[in-house]
């Protein structure tokens, strides 16, 4: 997609470690690099504990980077910044949270929740203008103006998530990090919120980082998708390509694990079921982190960390199976187990 354009967000060898005591380090995000282009939706998927939320929170500077860099519109997100630079950054990047029950202050009215950013940045000249802005935002996200003076507990989950979206939009951001924005909602309401997010993107040219574990929804909304496993990125490509031609064995198992709403297909489908649980990120396996659960693991997987490489144009993968010479020594995943056409 927008390869000629300059990236909006550039992440290079970003690491975020946590000291969990007793001299142990938890490597939540370990050396990831990618770009997000203006106007695109960048999907980030992986199981719980893979570091996707930590990555999102690091990009909005809720966490500092342990090492590596992340830049937004060319200037670094982390490191020392002046007060006005910080303020601008906080306006440009906003966040939508997972749990609409926990992310809204129950003691504040909807108006005060939505206008908090407007107040902090002094965007409204007087009370009247402030209320007008709130009303306009309520219209934008499909809520009623009469809802403005109510409290969060009077709303359903889907409506609360709309309030959360209105709050994020209030300061006119260009980049929104949505951390599992629909996981807490019912299916029919999920579709409403996703449609709203797509509409806002069309109207306002927003760029999204969409973090989720539900692959079918991510596929629907994203232009490109990155798959994370245990702190590292294993595959990144355009969203259709990821579903039509997944390369990394982990991506294949993830796709194969989704139960499809089609009973006939489900009865005939051969599943590639992963054995075991996610290893601890405090003491991850050597070499490739996926090797302990990978059906195609080779000797080299234990000794060397696979390189992040471009397998075909715009399709990146970190796996020894796609390393040219070494690939010959193991059976290609396509020749056994899951044929990706089954997934369609």
């Amino acid at each position, binding site marked *: 997609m927008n390869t000629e354009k300059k990236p909006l967000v550039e992440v290079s060898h970003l690491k975020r470690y946590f000291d969990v005591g007793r001299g142990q380090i938890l490597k939540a995000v370990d050396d990831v690099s990618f770009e997000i282009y203006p106007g695109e939706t960048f999907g980030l998927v992986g*199981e*719980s504990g893979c570091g996707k939320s930590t990555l999102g929170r690091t990009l909005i500077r809720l966490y500092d980077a342990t090492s590596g860099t992340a830049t937004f519109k060319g200037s670094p997100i982390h490191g020392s910044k002046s007060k006005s630079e910080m303020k601008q950054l906080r306006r440009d990047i906003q966040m939508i949270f997972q749990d609409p029950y926990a992310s809204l202050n129950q003691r504040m009215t909807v108006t005060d929740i939505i206008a908090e950013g407007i107040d902090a940045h002094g965007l409204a000249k007087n009370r009247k203008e402030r209320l007008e802005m709130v009303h306009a935002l309520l219209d934008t996200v499909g809520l009623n103006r009469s809802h403005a003076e109510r409290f969060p507990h009077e709303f*359903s*989950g*889907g*409506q609360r998530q709309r309030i959360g979206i209105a709050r994020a939009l209030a300061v006119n951001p260009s980049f929104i990090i949505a951390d599992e924005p629909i996981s807490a909602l*019912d*299916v*029919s*309401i*999920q*579709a*409403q919120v*996703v*449609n709203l997010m*797509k509409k806002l993107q069309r109207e306002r040219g927003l760029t999204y980082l969409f973090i989720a*574990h*539900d*692959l*079918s*929804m991510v*596929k*629907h909304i994203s232009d490109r998708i990155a798959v994370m496993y245990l702190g590292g990125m294993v595959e990144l490509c355009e969203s*259709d390509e990821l*579903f039509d031609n997944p390369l990394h064995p982990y991506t294949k*198992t*993830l796709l*194969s*694990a*989704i*139960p*499809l*709403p*089609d*009973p*006939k*297909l*489900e009865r005939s489908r051969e*599943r590639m*079921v*992963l054995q075991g*649980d*996610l290893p601890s990120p405090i003491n991850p396996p050597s070499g490739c982190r996926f090797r302990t659960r990978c059906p195609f693991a080779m000797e080299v997987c234990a000794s060397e960390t696979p390189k992040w490489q471009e397998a075909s144009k715009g399709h990146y993968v970190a796996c020894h199976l796609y390393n040219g010479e070494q690939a010959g020594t193991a059976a290609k995943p396509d020749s056994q187990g899951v044929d990706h056409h089954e*997934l*369609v």
Partner: protein
Amino acid sequence: MNSLLEVTDLQVSFYTYAGEVQAVRDVSFSLGKGETLAIVGESGSGKSVTSKSIMRLLAKSAKIKNGSIRFEGKELASLPEKQMQNIRGKDISMIFQDPMTSLNPTMTIGKQITEVLRKHQNMGRDAAAKRAVELLNQVGIPNPEKRLKQYPHQLSGGMRQRVVIAIALACNPKVIIADEPTTALDVTIQAQILELMNRLQDQMGTSIILITHDLGVVANMASRVAVMYAGKIVETGTVDEIFYESRHPYTWGLLASMPKLHEKSDELQAIPGTPPDLSDPPKGCPFAARCPYAMEICYEQMPSYTEHTGTHRAACWLQDSRAPKVERPLAAGGER
């Protein structure tokens, strides 16, 4: 059909300070031996309340107002608590949604499994411990002897859910009620647990009531489906009838709002609006306010069931002979 469990005209209400909330309104279904009945619906549709009524685990503020729950000829709705205790966990057991909270954090895994065995099967300490090891093997937990001495916090989410399943299986129950058994789990772990449940059911012939909102899980596990909306079953049928020949606009909406992996569409088919407030349920069809095909009668009177086959029925005025013909939308799946 040779039915094991028969629920007829069940009505359950919660009595709150704001008045009566009619969570379950005239629900009837039966469960045959060895089959999996999925009850699907959104939060607040009454699916969990229905299952808790069968187990008689309702909160104090809730009451079974009417209806019967017959299990092997016994009436559970009015059974004294003492006798219910002999059924709960023995003949009918339950798998809960959240394995983080459904296990007791202060008891070892072993103690929690053997507790059931010692109570219901009068097993001695050693016999129960032996059976517990067998059970953990059966649900695919490696090193069972070691695990028995551990506490829930030492296990991962998937492992904990396996322990919950082991406890549910301990007395070879005839019915297992699984309330969103995989919702709290990651998709790869979900695949493991679904495979396990399908395998165990094949081996033991247990009947399962599966409560979920995930239509993918339904397609994977269920033999029959009941779709609930606002405390009522609006459509019920075999899994194929529901997925390929559904008749109710709410079922269409549910199926259409799922993103399809193999096609790219710009807009998801969302169902507009939100479910009605059950403290003041509408007198007509509860879905009318959100239904694109709603007619005048829909707001006035609740439709009765129309039978399509012996197994398939839907409560919708569109099924009436006087109603205009409405084709099932393509997005709702099935063939024409």
